């Protein structure tokens, strides 16, 4: 059991530091998950839309070296 108020303060500061690190890791990981999205069953409609555009000839492989 801590005897002095400084010990309580150290424990509190340590807990805040750990909490901040955990928060920061979680925030950055959520950002990464937003940036890199894995396609699954819920994205089927989008995938089918794109694939159908390719199969119908509406989209062709891009031959240019720069975007217009």
């Amino acid at each position, binding site marked *: 059991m801590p005897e002095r108020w400084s010990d309580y303060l150290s424990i509190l500061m340590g807990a805040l530091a750990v909490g901040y690190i955990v928060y920061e890791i979680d925030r*950055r*990981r959520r*950002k990464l*998950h*937003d940036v890199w999205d894995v396609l699954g069953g819920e994205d089927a409609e989008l995938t089918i839309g*794109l694939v159908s555009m390719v199969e119908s000839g509406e*989209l*062709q492989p891009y031959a240019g070296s720069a975007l217009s």
Partner: protein
Amino acid sequence: MARSPRASGTSRRPRAETGTRREAVGSRPTEAPPRTVAARRRQVPAQSPALEEDAGWEEARVIEPAADAEQSTRPATAGPRFQIFIIDAGWDSPAHRVLHRNFGLLRDLQRGEPIYVLSREKSIEFIRRHASSLLGKDPIIAVHDLEALGASGTAGFHGFRLHLGLLSTEQQALLALQAFSRFLNAHRQSLDLEAEIRRNLRREGMIGAIEIILHHEPREIGG
């Protein structure tokens, strides 16, 4: 950066194993002729010069493993693995500028994989009709894994998307593009692409958590 240890049961095959398999195949007497043109010339001295112009095409055929060889990895000559789509409605954002400046290099690095670019009008129509949740996240680079699509269709994992529009600086967008290109080139033969995406791009797991703090690339992109 320390590489994350391979999880047990990972299905990514190391390159040495592929080379070893090919060497073992080549050592058996009934196997396909040697891979190099020089070795074949030694074996077939009577080959006419006119046939040498087909040597390149024949060499491509020779590289393929024998039919009875164990097919446990994706052959390198199996054709394109990915379909790449670029959806960009045209927001004047750092990511839009970075993509336009670096598209030529990106295309050169992904030769062999078809890249489909939706025009501004097509992109707007596509987002409005199919994907209003993607509004503001473009430019988007969508990658379809043709192997996964062929195996299980769209019901399960079948690719991934890079939402460049969520990145607020040019530095972040450039890092993401570089990571994207590096990932596609490094994992073209991967058997478990989803696991690679979750480990190397999304930094899931305990090792990923450490890398988020210690490695500059996920730290910058996620910042």
